[in-house]
């Protein structure tokens, strides 16, 4: 499938590169609808991998790459089932999203996240699954999950630990603060910093460069440089599930889901 237009995203293969565009109102939240379409996307990888050198992931939404997991959906689904079934539901969702993230992480092509605006929680975890993050100078990054009483659940912490120093991970995790693109670039999270509105253009230019190199060497280099931290990822799912069953989490999610204020995404 060389092009697709779904309810939450679309993609198009062109000149050996595929562009995946997230486009889900209001802020590219990753819930079951986006997960289903991401699953379709990664299942299409295999068939075209041999003729594809790069994949660019970007957002069509103004001011946001992705605000992360769909917390309102998470809350409403959790309260719609008996308490005992909540854990089963969340574990199943996490396993599916981990499979998608791992597929993007290990794809035998160069994956580039072209980030503008807010890149929070699950949105940052999606960007971290990519090989290269190119960010516009107005981009902001955060892991605000601890304020809800759980940890990032889409593979974020193991992947951030793989790429950066533990001190940076702790700062992001324990404060939940957003950091700007310049700071993210300084600590090595962002590979290339661009002017406002230029991230996608620079990502396309980078994709053209990537395409010049031998695909076998590229795939081997990637496998060598970017091992998937499977054990830690599994542990992350377990910790998330242990934390998720606590009443404090339901209280925090309820507050988030019902917050009429202007700042629900901020830590």
């Amino acid at each position, binding site marked *: 499938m060389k092009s697709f237009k779904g309810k939450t995203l679309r993609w198009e293969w062109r000149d050996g590169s595929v562009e995946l565009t997230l486009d889900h109102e209001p802020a590219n939240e990753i819930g079951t609808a986006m997960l289903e379409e991401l699953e379709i996307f990664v299942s299409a990888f295999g068939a075209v991998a041999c003729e594809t050198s790069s994949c660019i992931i970007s957002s069509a939404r103004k001011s946001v790459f992705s605000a992360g997991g769909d917390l309102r959906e998470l809350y409403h689904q959790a309260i719609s089932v008996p308490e005992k079934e909540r854990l089963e539901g969340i574990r199943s969702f996490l396993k599916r999203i981990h499979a998608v993230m791992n597929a993007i992480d290990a794809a035998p092509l160069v994956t580039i996240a072209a980030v503008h605006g807010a890149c929070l929680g699950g949105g940052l975890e999606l960007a971290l699954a990519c090989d290269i993050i190119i960010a516009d100078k107005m981009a902001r990054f955060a892991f605000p999950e601890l304020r809800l009483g759980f940890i990032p659940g889409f593979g974020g912490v193991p992947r951030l630990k793989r790429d950066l120093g533990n001190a940076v991970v702790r700062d992001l995790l324990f404060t939940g603060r*957003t950091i700007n693109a310049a700071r993210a670039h300084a600590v090595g999270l962002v590979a290339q910093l661009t002017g406002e509105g230029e991230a996608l253009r620079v990502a396309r230019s980078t994709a053209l460069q990537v395409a010049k190199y031998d695909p076998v060497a590229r795939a081997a280099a990637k496998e060598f440089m970017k091992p998937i931290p499977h054990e830690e990822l599994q542990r992350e799912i377990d910790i998330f599930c242990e934390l998720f069953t606590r009443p404090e989490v339901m209280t925090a999610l309820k507050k988030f889901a019902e917050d009429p204020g*202007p*700042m629900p995404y901020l830590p």
Partner: protein
Amino acid sequence: MRTLEQTTQEVLDLAAKHFQLPAGSLAPEDDFFKKLGIDSLQTLEMLSRLENHFGIELPDYEVQGVSNFKTLAERIQSRL
């Protein structure tokens, strides 16, 4: 070193430009959530704009509960 008055004026000018309002239409005591009608993502955008302009980092928790330009300018001033 900027004075607090200069910082406040620069914050007002940046906000007016960012949200495409006439220059001088914002005042230090204005509640920016009410005056600008902005949401959390637009707040983050404004935060980036301010950090890039002043060359500082302003952690979200330092501006939590801040809703007028004067107090925001004070928080920025403390980082300059």
